């Protein structure tokens, strides 16, 4: 059972290596991709089944890596990383379903490499290992945007790379500094999270980490790569960026913020909350003004990630569980919406909102799914998004009246741009481009249906999911309300 996490991490890489060695044909490659992702899904479900919600870190595996500096291969899963693991494991087969007809071999290889990268980042508990996965997961995305993207893509690929690497380099410096601090105090080297968490670390060290996460999430002021990269990336890369990598930024804020920087985080707390509140509104306004569908949802995604960051930073029970819930539901919903945007682009070759319209007339199934995901993102009752946003708003009110009022009102901005967008894209007269818009096929329905079911389930019966992480939250918050 120890090695199950390693299998989950490295299975896709194995598939990729196998494909490369065998010089796989397209069919074999597709088989390898599906096979590895389905195996990972099965393992992840088994993991969730055997997961003990009361036990903290589980399925731990430690092996030496660089002995002279105490760097280890150290992986483990707790409630929070389990959520990410499940999301990644679920999304990958769906993405493969989306790109079923993709004939470019490189695409499949990159996706498999990407899965290993994000999975590793979600599961590693040694800081050097985390840094390794954190950096390497960027590479496939970089090449996918630059190679398969559109609209000035080489530029945006480079911009994404340069900005995120800048953040992670700051994190690296912090990691090295903490490692040395541990050595100076205890006389031996270690980069394990559990070891480093024993010492307290200063605000500057925390700043290195925060910079990396703020760029990855992205919080406003650190977001300039976002719209361009989302706008030019191919659909699977967008889905991974918005549903997984951005969530990994929030995950990092949680995982390291609350273990390493318990004390020093207080320095940043008011600024981060202000930034998150500002981001909520700022990104929502950007989304309202945006003319391109994909860029609009890039900003919408930014707005929701600010909400997640807010939920994490207010540090009370409602806020944290709401943030967790929103991470899961927003990952599913935004995956759905970006997949459907990809479908629109494949059908009409444009994403300019002004040139769309009237899709509902010729493609009712399409309109239903699209509207469902959009409403879920807006947080309409009955969908998972509602539960999550409600929890965070309650948390925000508990934190302070002003914060609560601001959070609650700015969320309404999402309603504004979502409904206006729906009106312009789905309804009204058909434009020249959307005439004879082809409705969803069976494969496409199969790809979207699991997301819809999960979102409905999480909206109607949140009690099915909360027991997974409630005990860990209670444990973490300890005496706090």
């Amino acid at each position, binding site marked *: 059972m120890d090695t199950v996490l390693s299998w989950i991490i490295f299975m896709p890489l194995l598939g990729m290596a196998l494909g490369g060695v065998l010089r796989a044909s397209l069919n074999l490659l597709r088989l390898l991709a599906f096979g590895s992702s389905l195996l990972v899904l099965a393992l992840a479900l088994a993991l969730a089944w055997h997961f003990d919600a009361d036990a903290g870190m589980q399925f731990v595996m430690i092996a030496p890596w660089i002995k*002279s500096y105490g760097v280890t291969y150290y992986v483990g899963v707790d409630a929070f990383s389990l959520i990410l693991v499940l999301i990644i494991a679920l999304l990958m087969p769906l993405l493969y379903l989306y790109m079923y007809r993709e004939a470019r071999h490189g695409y499949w290889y990159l996706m498999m490499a990407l899965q290993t990268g994000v999975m590793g980042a979600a599961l590693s508990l040694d800081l050097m290992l985390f840094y390794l996965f954190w*950096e*390497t997961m960027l590479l496939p995305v970089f*090449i996918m945007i630059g*190679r398969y993207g559109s609209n000035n893509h080489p530029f945006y*690929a480079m911009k994404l790379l340069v900005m995120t690497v800048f953040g992670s*380099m700051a994190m690296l410096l912090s990691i*090295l*500094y903490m490692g040395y601090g541990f050595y100076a105090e205890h006389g031996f080297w270690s980069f394990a999270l559990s070891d480093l968490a024993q010492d307290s670390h200063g605000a500057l060290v925390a700043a290195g980490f925060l910079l990396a996460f703020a760029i990855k999430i992205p919080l406003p002021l650190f977001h300039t790569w976002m719209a361009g990269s989302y706008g030019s990336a191919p659909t699977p890369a967008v889905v991974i960026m918005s549903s997984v990598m951005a969530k990994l930024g929030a995950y990092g804020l949680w995982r390291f913020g609350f273990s390493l920087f318990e004390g020093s985080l207080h320095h940043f707390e008011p600024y981060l909350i202000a930034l998150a509140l500002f981001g909520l509104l700022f990104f929502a306004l950007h989304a309202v003004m945006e003319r391109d569908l994909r860029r609009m949802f890039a900003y919408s995604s930014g707005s929701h990630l600010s909400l997640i960051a807010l939920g994490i930073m207010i540090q009370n029970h409602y806020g944290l569980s709401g943030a967790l819930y929103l991470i899961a539901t927003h990952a599913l919903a935004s995956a759905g919406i970006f997949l459907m945007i990809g479908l629109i682009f494949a059908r009409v070759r444009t994403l300019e909102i002004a040139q769309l319209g009237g899709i509902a007339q010729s493609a009712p199934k399409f309109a239903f799914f699209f509207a469902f995901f959009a409403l879920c993102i807006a947080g309409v009752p009955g969908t998972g998004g509602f539960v999550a946003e409600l929890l965070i708003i309650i948390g925000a009110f508990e934190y302070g009246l002003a914060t609560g009022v601001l959070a609650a009102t700015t969320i309404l901005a999402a309603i504004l741009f979502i409904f206006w967008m729906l009106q312009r894209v789905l309804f009204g007269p058909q434009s020249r481009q959307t005439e004879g818009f082809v409705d969803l096929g069976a494969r496409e329905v199969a790809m979207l249906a699991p997301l819809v079911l999960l979102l409905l389930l999480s909206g109607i019966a949140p009690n099915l999911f909360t027991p997974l992480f409630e005990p860990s939250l209670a444990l973490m918050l300890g005496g706090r309300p």
Partner: protein
Amino acid sequence: MIYELFLILPMMLIVLGALMLMLLSHREAPLNRNMLSVLILALAFGLTLSRLGEAHSVFVFEAIFGRSFIVDSFSTLFDLMILGGAMLTLLINHDYFKSRHYFDGDFFALVLFAVFGMMALSHAHELISAFISLEIASLSIYALVGYNSDNPKSREAMMKYVVLGSLAGALFMLGLALIYGATGSTELGAIAAHIAAHPQDAHTMLIIGGFFVMVTLFFKIGAVPFHAWVVDVYHGAPLPVTMLMASTFKIALFAVILRIYLGDFAALGDFWSLPLQILCVLTLIGGSFLALSQSNIKRMLAGSSVVHAGYMLIALNAITLGNFNASESILFYLMSYFISSVGAFGILSFLAAHEHKQLTFEDFKGFGYSHPYLAAMMSIFMLSLAGFPSTIGFLGKFYIFTGAIEAGQIALAALGIFVAFVSIFYYFRLIATMYFYDTPKTEQHFGFDTTTVLILLMAILSIWGGIGTALLPYLPTPDALIELSRHAITSLD
């Protein structure tokens, strides 16, 4: 006596081999001189390898040479690196040698002489013999740089290198004279004893002399502000010579730098520290600008080699501040830089041999589609040079930056990391060029031959060096390399 002969046998082999190649150089009958010189190097390598792990410290032929040549575990490791480096350089350029007409017998004789000079440099325990070894290596390399006399660039490069290099050599002599004047000896042990016997503030002349010596060595490794020659010389020289200079020669230079810093000048660390820090900052920043502004891959790699020298200066500075552990990180970094840069240059030489390209960024547009496997390996080397995690280059930087932080040099470590971030840009520019543009050319495949197999080997080493773990038994890991370096350093104390 016999034992001492055995100890210097590898060096003798190289000299004899060089002489033999010279005598054979005008033989009419076809002769694979490349393989012959590789064979000689391999013999010497094998002999040296058999001594690896022994911690002896012997002054060879003390009655004749005094204490000027030493054989210890430090020099053994450096000999191995130099011999291995030269061997790989010759082998990986196999195709290139065949494609150019001007590589005759003398070329390989000169390479062997250069290797002899480098080995002698790592054994030198006295400044005059160090100078002589340095000049043996340098003179051979001057000639090698200008070897393609049909190419005006090559001639220009040689001229530049000879003039500036001789000037630097003269400074070494001046420094040496000052040191001799101050201490009455040029032997490292005696200098160290002199420093120990006198108060700290009585060493003005010695320190000035030491600076002059250092200037020469820093000139040779291309530290800013002594870097004016680097890009032009690296660009003008034939590719195999560029590789030899960028990797193997640098290894030899660090052998003597480390021996001086860890040996006799260690007590004066405080005086070196500040100038070294300034040099370090200048080298890191200047080198980055140099690398950023190039449009030719060879020149870009040349510029970035200055930056890599800067990283090693960070570690050197940590040594002067008393963190002797940092010397291991220099050794590791030399190996890691060697592996990735030889791989990258190897691909360039392979392309130059087969396709006669100019090797600008433009030429690499769509390279990922016309040459998928070579492009993948080139990407690995670029990642490794940029210090991306999961490659050996990352571990090299990891050791260096950790060592700097250990020595209290957080600002320098931060600057190093920032420069590594800048380097992402120019290394990834090549990756982006290779993959982001279409090419009208069809896919080309090359079979396995000496060059491609070695490039592949370097790529595997780059990855293995970065992620190889202690999980798999019986395989050497990065840990083993660091252990080896640690063992080598012990003989200096």
